[in-house]
């Protein structure tokens, strides 16, 4: 691993500005030509220069600069022809593992994991949901028990809805370490080696016919205690931080006018005049308007984030995205009539990262978007989250927060 070379341009008082970061990027790309440098090597050097995430500390891919300045770095890198930052397989690594390691990881964990994560050498997945713990994540039953002889943890249980588990080197795992404690207090957070003995990954076939996700069966999997993140019993606190990042990731994608399904629907309407009816016209125009409203809301959210004032609107936008995608794909089937009765492919297969989704039928989108209101927090639970955390309304009366997990009805 190369030693960290802080980028030139830091002011003597340590403060960074967008201009100084831009010139740091210019220096960087003149030393590492993106056109000729191997991508892993390029990203590694970028990490070492502190330009991976400028708000991370020096030595861990950052410069300790304000987070808002990252966009100046990214714009400059894009202008210089650097490879795009599309996360693809690395969504969990970049979007969840990195911030969790930054906030809760110890020095050794940051040193070991952040660099290969950023260079895309190591793929990450997230082992949270279980068959018995969906919305109620804190009820999860996967056990991690200490092995007094070795100091390791021994993990047994089943996880579900795990993206890229079959490609992953590492997993973010929440497991129960204190079943005698109330459910939120008895959880701990681990980094699990997905190639370790006892980890079995099986594809999970979904309503669309294919398998985007996996089930992961864990049988006597050993995790060294050095791969525990945060204190024993702090798993809920660490996991809550990760989930928040997931909602922002799903709810706030910026896109151009008529991006996504709205564009497909508008083009279908324009290209197929024989399918038009007055009722469908009304529905299509309403959907177009609602899609614009959401696009602008996501754009406003992005601008707030860039200005350093992230807003709480992400959860609400996620609810609306799910509902609108479902409406638009159903509307496309109505419009297609007889063609809507067909389906393109029921094959049980794993989609490839470079699959062209735009070639899939509207039947596929109709089914796939049903997952949008479930994944990353169901619409019903998110409404509670907004009501309680954003509007400050009182929580539902609950009986499950104070009694030991092992005594809960299930």
């Amino acid at each position, binding site marked *: 691993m190369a030693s960290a070379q802080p980028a030139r341009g830091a002011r003597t008082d340590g403060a960074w500005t967008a201009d100084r970061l831009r010139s740091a990027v210019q220096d960087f790309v003149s030393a590492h030509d993106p056109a000729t440098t191997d991508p892993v090597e390029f990203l590694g050097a970028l990490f070492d220069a502190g330009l991976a995430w400028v708000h991370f500390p020096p030595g861990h891919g950052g410069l300790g600069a304000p987070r808002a300045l990252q966009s100046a770095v990214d714009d400059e890198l894009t202008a210089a022809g650097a490879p795009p930052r599309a996360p693809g397989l690395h969504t969990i690594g970049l979007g969840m593992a990195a911030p969790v390691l930054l906030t809760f990881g110890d020095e050794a964990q940051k040193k070991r994991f952040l660099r290969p994560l950023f260079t895309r050498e190591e793929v990450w997945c997230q082992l949270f949901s279980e068959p018995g713990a969906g919305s109620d994540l804190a009820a999860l039953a996967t056990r991690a028990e200490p092995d007094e002889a070795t100091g390791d943890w021994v993990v047994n249980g089943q996880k579900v809805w795990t993206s890229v588990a079959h490609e992953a080197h590492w997993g973010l795992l929440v497991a129960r370490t204190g079943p005698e404690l109330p459910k939120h207090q008895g959880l701990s957070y681990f980094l699990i080696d997905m190639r370790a003995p006892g980890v079995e990954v099986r594809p999970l076939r979904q309503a669309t016919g294919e398998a985007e996700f996996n089930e992961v069966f864990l049988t006597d999997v050993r995790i060294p205690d050095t791969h525990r993140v945060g204190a024993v019993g702090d798993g809920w606190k660490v996991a809550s931080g990760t989930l928040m990042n997931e909602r922002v990731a799903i709810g706030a994608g910026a896109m151009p*006018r008529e991006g996504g399904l709205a564009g497909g629907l*508008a083009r279908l309407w324009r290209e197929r005049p024989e399918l038009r009816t007055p009722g469908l016209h009304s529905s299509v125009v309403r959907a177009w308007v609602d899609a614009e409203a959401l696009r602008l809301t996501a754009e*406003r959210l992005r*601008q707030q984030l860039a200005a350093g004032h992230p807003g709480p*609107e992400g959860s609400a936008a996620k*609810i609306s995205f799910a509902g609108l995608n479902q409406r638009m794909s159903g509307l496309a089937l109505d419009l297609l009539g007889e063609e809507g009765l067909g389906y393109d492919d029921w094959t049980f297969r794993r989609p490839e990262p470079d699959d062209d989704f735009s070639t899939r039928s509207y039947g596929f989108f109709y089914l796939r978007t049903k997952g949008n209101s479930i994944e990353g927090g169901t619409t019903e639970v998110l*409404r509670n989250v907004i009501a309680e955390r954003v509007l400050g309304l009182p929580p539902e009366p609950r009986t499950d927060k104070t009694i030991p997990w092992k005594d809960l009805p299930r």
Partner: protein
Amino acid sequence: MSAEPAADLLYNEVEDELRIPLRALLADRCPTGALLTRIESDELYDTKLWAALGAELGITGLSVPEEQGGAGAGWRETAVVLEELGRAVAPVPYLGSSVLVTAALMAADESRVLPEVAAGRRAAALAVPFSTSPGRSFPDTVRLSGSTLSGTVTSVADALPARVLLVPATGEAGPGLYLVDLTAAEDTVVLTPRRSLDLTRQLADITLRSAPAVPVALGTEAIRVLEVALTTGAALLASEQLGVAEWCLTTTVTYVKERHQFGRPVGSFQAVKHRLADLYGLVSQARAVARNAVAALDAGSPTVALEASLAQAFVSEAVVETAEAALQLHGGIGFTWEHPVHLYLKRAKSSALALGTADRHRSLVALLADLPPAV
């Protein structure tokens, strides 16, 4: 459709600073209790408050350049004022005078009356039915004869406190826009108050009988100027509606935390929480859409008509949904005359009909975004 650089949808520092003294002034001079008293009187418009907006805060001509007597700011700042006036359902002729007539006079390069209007010394009203949408044919209910106007215009907003009217009329030479000075018109102009659904924006019918008039724009220029005024009005009305919706949401959230039934705050029931969570999402979307329309106006964007109709198509429905839910979630007290929520519902629904319904604006969106109707 080509990707354009995203408009700035946030509020800048100047806009934030503008909001603070205005909100304080409205809380002091226009509390809801006083409004409930005012609606029992013959003076539904608050002329003192209007004078304060002009003389004390200097915000009646924000969009007008300084050399023409304005503040030299822009439509973004005007929109922030409208948000606050909507939040207070303030009975002042801001939309008519500082938006509709001001936009028309600026578009027509008129500089004799504009400074007086910008300073708030002379409130002005655009003499069209308040339901008039952009994209409609030029009004023909008023005729020009020589240099005087005759005819009637019904349901005009902000005419009652106005000192000057901007009247679309047709003559032998075609359409024209004319200024009528009400202080000099004597009995050639009669304003008849209408019993209006919106108690905080009372409409009036106007009858002109050979009223002396001065032309501002003629022919196709008159058509263009009127369209600019209506499009500007539609775009900015969304900000007023946003303020109305915000009041409804925050007031309801506060109420359901306090109101207890079944031994619990009613805001702890999921049926109530989920409805408010959805309204929160709706209002945050309305804000993005309203800011987008205002940014398009301010930048003179080529798609301003589309952005304005998009704003009306979305926000008109959002504000009505929010106000209706506010009344419902207040329960019995929300249905009384003594609680102000009905003032907001009346403003919400009337504003949704104003300057084109959501349905009419969806038709304009369909036209401008190339989504042709079924034949």
